[in-house]
Every structure is written in C-alpha cells, then in structure tokens.
C-alpha cells in the first residue's frame, strides 16, 4: 500500500464526480447511495426524536399535559415504528456500511450497484407509505402491531404494516448485496482472517437480514390480509390464533435486535484498536462471537412471550437459551477491554463514544438477564423496566456506536475535520442525558409503572420528571452534533487521508475518496489492526 498523496487542491473525488441533482438520484456509486441513506435516515431520526420528546413531555406530570390519550398512543407508536423500521435498522448498514464495506474490502463498488440503488428507493417508498398516515388517521397499535387489537383498530394500521413490509425488501437487498460483495469482491491478499471486524459484523447482520426479514414480510402481509378480508389466521373471533402472530413477529424482531446491534459492535471493533494503538485482542474469537450471537438470536424469540400462554417447557427452554447470549456477548466485551489494556489510549471523540457504548451496552445487557429470568420477568414485563432495558441496548448499542462511527469516518466522507472540543462536550451531554432519561425508568419499572400508559400514580412524578429533563439533554446534545458536523462539511479544516493512522483500506486512499475508491486496487499484506507504531 503506497502513500501516494495527490496534493492537487481540488482533486477528483466522488463528491465532484458528476454534478447536478440527477447525478445523485440516479447514482450507482455505493458512496453516494450511502450518503443518500445517511441523510434520509437522519431525517427520520429527527421525526422519531420529535415524537419521543412529545411522549416524554406528556409524561412530565400525571394527567393530561399537552395531548389527549389518543394522541399519546399515536405519538409513541410513531416514535417506535419510525425509530425501529426507518432509523435503527438501516442506519449503520445502509448508510455507513454502504459507504465503507466496499472500501474496506478494497472493491470499487458493491456486487450489485443497481440493486443497491433500488433498495434505497424501496426503503423510501415504504417509509413514505408508513409516515403518510400522519396526515390521515394515524396509527395507535404500538410498533409491535399485536393482534387482535391491530386487526380491530380503526386507524391506518394497514398502511403502516405494508410500509414495514416494503421496507423489509430494502433490508433484504442490502443484506444480499453485502454477502456477495464480501465473498466475491475482496482485494488480492485480503483473506478471511484479514477481514476488518466491521465487515464481519455486517456479514453476520446480512445473514440475519436475509433469513429473518422474509418472516416479518410474511407476517405483515398476513396481518394486512387479516384486516382487508378477515382471513382468520390471527383473529381469534374467526378461529385464528393471535399468539401465532407473536411467534412470527418475534421470530423476526428478536434477531432484528441484532440487525441493530451487530453493526454497532462492528463500528466499536474498528474504533477501539485504532484509538488504543493495539491489535484487536482475540481477533478470531471476536469474529466468531459475532456469529455466535447471530446464531443464538434465532432461537430465543420466545423470551418476549413468557406471559403469552406459551407452555412451561417452552418458557424454560427460551429462558435458558437466552442466558447463552451472554457468552458471546461477554467474549466481545472482554475482547474490547483487553484490547485497551496496556494500550496507548487516545481520547478522541470516536473513542469517547466507544466508552459510552461499553458503559450503556453493558447495563443494557445485564438488565436483560432480569428479563430472561422467568420469575422476575413476570413481574417486570410490560413495565418501564423493559423500556429502559431496550433503550439501553438499542440506543446504547446502535446510536452511540453510530455517533462514534460518524465521527470516526466523517473526515473520510467529506475530507474535513469536525471541531474536536465541541464534539467531546456534545458527547458528554448526550451520554449524561441518556442516563438521566433512562436510568430512572429502571426504577419506575421495578416499582410497577406499566409501559405505554398515558397516566401514572403521583408517587412516580419525580422520576418521570427527571426522565423528561434527560430527554431534553439528549435532544440538545444531538442538535449540537448536527450543527458542528454540518458546519464541518463546509468550513471544517481539511482532513488528511488518514487522520487516525488506521490500517484498514478505506484510509489508504484520498479523503474524500476517488470515484472508484482507489486509483489502483490495493494489495493486502497484513491484518487490519497491525499498527506499525504499536
């Protein structure tokens, strides 16, 4: 890998290769498609965030504050649906993954560029269909669409489930593309044991996307038919089985947790060695652990259904297998900590987000044990404890990692640096805000406050108020990030091709990268984390 620095002022890159709006909308360049995904998912992140702030504001005091109970049901449904289907699932794979996976394997593009572009428009169509209901009757089922209520509700549940159905195809297309890209387009010398762990994580994610997403596609399709013509598969009034819906739904939606979390782990896997200046501890174990998690994720869905009349034997088995998730997850956490041990840690913003990730994700993982345990789950299920748990896992696992990855790769994407001081302070605000928002919810839940309720008993007021204040901190922190990151694109200091001295291939080309990523296809002779200065 030679360091041929082209120091031409405005060298040719993917951003100035082709001008005009059509050069973006019809692009087949994985980097531009990644950018389109990035802005679109962030736009939905903004909408989902507004919905969250509204929900929290309503809960600042018991009784009605700013909205009616009906509006409240819709607000939390939109928050959940938008955040899960339109933000967290595509955020890292489709935005950062699209941009960096082909670069990390030393390819010019993904295997099927047209399919990649199609996946973006399919996503957009599904998201538009689902969110257009905001201007109609809305939807009030919660993001889980549990039957039989989702069959009976007079709101636009059909449009939203069809939106989720359509977005599923986008997810499948992305997964398929990544699998083939990793298999067939690796640069010479890039053996499987030299593959960056971000690619390993996206590979495992893609497998889950291809295997689990068709099941949610079928489920949402059946729910649509149930609503449209009463086919009686899920509707108990017609002899159907509403618990079957829950099985189908969680057969997808538990693995989907790992569609959200594994890419986040992949990002952390890149950041920690680079900012510890040490090779990844236990590279092989780290890669295998990703697949361990993916594998186990397919056989634990029943832990969402301990109170659904599932048989005792099924409950026992699902509880037991769920505990096994802790093993590969533990391997990952120990691997990260051991990588940092005796490393020269550089406290730059991406690394701070990696710390935030570790802290938040560990709490999220450990509180999962309370919920995997049958006896305590019966007490805690349907309470705020569950809400706090999955926000620690999904926001901690995905959003913290995404923010880390966004800071890590921003100089490569735009060729500009962001303001380091502001970034560190904003990270602190988000981290504190996150814990102020969600930690009280563990306490609220364990004291019996049910989730999704519009009103609560007066003794829960103080903790709810604290949680709402925390949500404002998160909002302010994210707004701050948006401001200095967008500023950086236009006015930031010019970034060098490899500001963090990383070894993976995306850093061995110019910032921003050339239209075809590399001027010559790189030859790989070393592992991804073999730092020369270590």
């Amino acid at each position, binding site marked *: 890998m030679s360091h041929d620095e082209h120091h031409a002022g405005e060298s040719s890159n993917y951003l100035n290769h082709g001008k005009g709006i059509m050069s973006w909308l019809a692009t087949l360049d994985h980097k531009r498609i990644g950018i389109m995904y990035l802005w679109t998912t962030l736009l939905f992140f903004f909408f989902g965030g507004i919905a969250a702030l509204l929900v929290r504001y309503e809960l600042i005091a018991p009784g009605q504050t700013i909205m009616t109970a009906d509006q409240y049901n819709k607000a939390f449904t939109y928050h959940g649906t938008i955040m899960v289907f339109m933000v967290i699932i595509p955020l890292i794979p489709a935005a950062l993954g699209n941009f960096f996976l082909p670069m990390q394997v030393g*390819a*010019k*593009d993904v*295997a*099927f*560029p047209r*399919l990649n572009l199609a996946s973006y428009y399919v996503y957009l169509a599904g998201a538009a269909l689902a969110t257009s209901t905001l201007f109609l009757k809305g939807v009030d089922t919660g993001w889980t669409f549990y039957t039989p209520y989702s069959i009976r509700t007079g709101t636009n549940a059909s449009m939203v489930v069809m939106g989720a159905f359509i977005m599923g195809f986008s997810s*499948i297309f992305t*997964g*398929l*593309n990544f*699998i*083939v890209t990793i*298999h*067939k*387009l690796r640069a010479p010398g890039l053996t499987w044991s030299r593959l960056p762990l971000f690619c390993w994580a996206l590979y495992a994610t893609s497998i889950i996307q*291809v*295997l*689990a*997403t*068709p*099941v949610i*596609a*079928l*489920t949402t399709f*059946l729910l649509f*038919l*149930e609503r449209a*013509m*009463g*086919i*009686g*598969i899920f*509707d108990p009034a*017609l*002899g*159907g*089985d509403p618990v*079957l819906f829950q099985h*189908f739904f969680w*057969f997808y939606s538990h693995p989907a947790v790992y569609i959200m979390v594994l890419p986040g782990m992949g990002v952390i896997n890149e950041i920690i060695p680079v900012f510890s200046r040490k090779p990844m501890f236990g590279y092989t174990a780290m890669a295998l652990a990703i697949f361990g998690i993916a594998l186990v994720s397919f056989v634990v869905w029943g832990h969402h259904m301990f109170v659904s009349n599932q048989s005792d034997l099924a409950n026992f088995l699902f509880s037991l297998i769920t505990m096994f998730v802790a093993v590969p997850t533990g391997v990952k956490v120990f691997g990260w900590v051991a990588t940092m041990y005796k490393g020269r840690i550089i406290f730059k913003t991406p690394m701070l987000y990696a710390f935030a990730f570790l802290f938040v994700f560990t709490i999220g993982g450990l509180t999962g044990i309370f919920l995997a345990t049958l006896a305590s789950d019966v007490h805690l299920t349907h309470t705020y404890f569950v809400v706090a748990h999955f926000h620690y896992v999904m926001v901690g696992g995905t959003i913290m990692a995404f923010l880390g990855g966004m800071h890590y790769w921003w100089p490569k994407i735009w060729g500009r640096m962001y303001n380091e001081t502001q970034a560190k302070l904003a990270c602190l605000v988000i981290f504190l805000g996150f814990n102020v928002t969600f930690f009280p919810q563990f306490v609220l839940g364990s004291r019996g406050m049910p989730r999704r309720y519009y009103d609560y008993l007066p003794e829960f007021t103080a903790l709810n108020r604290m949680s709402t204040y925390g949500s404002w901190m998160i909002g302010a922190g994210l707004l701050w990030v948006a401001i200095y990151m967008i500023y950086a694109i236009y006015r930031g200091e010019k970034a060098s091709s490899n500001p963090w001295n990383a070894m993976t291939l995306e850093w061995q080309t110019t910032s921003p990268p050339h239209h*075809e990523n590399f001027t010559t296809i790189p030859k790989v002779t070393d592992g991804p984390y073999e730092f020369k200065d270590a």
Partner: protein
Amino acid sequence: MGNKNHHAHHFESAAAEFEASKQGLWVFLVNEVLFFAGLFVAYAIYRILNPDLMHEAHKYLNWKLGATNTVVLICSSLTMALGVTAAQKGQQKKSANLILVTILLACVFLVIKYFEYMHKIHEGLLPGGLFSYHEPIHPKAPQFFSVYFVLTGLHGIHVIGGIVVLAWIYMRTLRGEFTDKYFTPVECTGLYWHFVDLVWIYLFPLLYLAS
C-alpha cells in the same frame, strides 16, 4: 449492454461477475425459502392442534386438478433446464423456443388454478370470515382454507413473476443478447423457476393429499 464479453467495471472478469450473480440468486432463494417457511409453520401448527382438520378439509380440494398442475410444472422445469443448456451451448433459437414452451406451461398452470379458485369461491370454501359453505365441515375448516389460499396465492404470484421474467429473457434471447460466454440471466431465471416448481411439489401433497 448486449456486447459479447461485457462485464461491469467493478468485476475483474465476466466469469467473476457470473459467479457473483449466481451467488446472489442463491442467497435470494434462501430468503424465499424462509418466506414460505413461515406459512408451512402455520400449516404445521394448525395441523398439530387439529389433527382431524386436514383430513376432513382436504377432501374439498380437487386432487386431480392439483396432480395435473404438478405434472405441468414438472414439465416446465424440464423445458427450462433444456433451455438453459441450449443457452450455454449458444443455441439461441432452440433456447428461445424452450423458454417459450416454459411460459406456455406456466400459463396452463395458472388457467387450471383459476378454475380451481373459481369453483372454491362459488362453493363458499373461503378463508376465515368469508367461509360460507352450505354444510358444516369442521369448526376450523376456514383456517384450512386460509392457509390454502394464502399459500397457493403467494405461489401463484411467484408464478406470475416468473412468467414476466421469462418473457423478458425470451425477448433478450430473440434479440441475440446471449452467447455461450454470457448467459447469466438465463441461468439465474432457470434457478428461480426450479425453485417455484419445488415449492409447489411441497404444497401439493401437504394440501391435497393430507390424509
């Protein structure tokens, strides 16, 4: 497009692109298997919970028409396989004719299916709340017809999709776009078509011969 040894810029050779396309199609088929698997699971659950249901309700399906359709689809798989072989050898004319026969057989399948559906609709042997057969069969019979219509309906949609893709491949073959060096779309369509047939081969005994 259409140029003899054409391959996309990000592949090093046409062979590499062919391998990638084929792998992509296999991954897609795995995804399709999981899509149908959900319905087979629903079938299995209703069957385990009501062992007599399938036994009672399957009698109302016309196994003769089902068997005819099975034969039609197996024949279409054969003509498709021969068409792919012809394409690999560069025998475009032969390949085009075989693909055309495949399309016609697929249409025969749909016509037979149409008459089956019409008969069921006429009798009121319909899913869930639409069920209105004149005499009692089994309390869960509407669920059997839900599974029947959704499974065969989704399979039918796949057949229609197959016809569209086959027609497109047929046009391209007539235009002479494929050679003995470049026949990826023909081969991939062939794989897809075999998959569609295979789903039916499972559907037929499970639904029509469920005793």
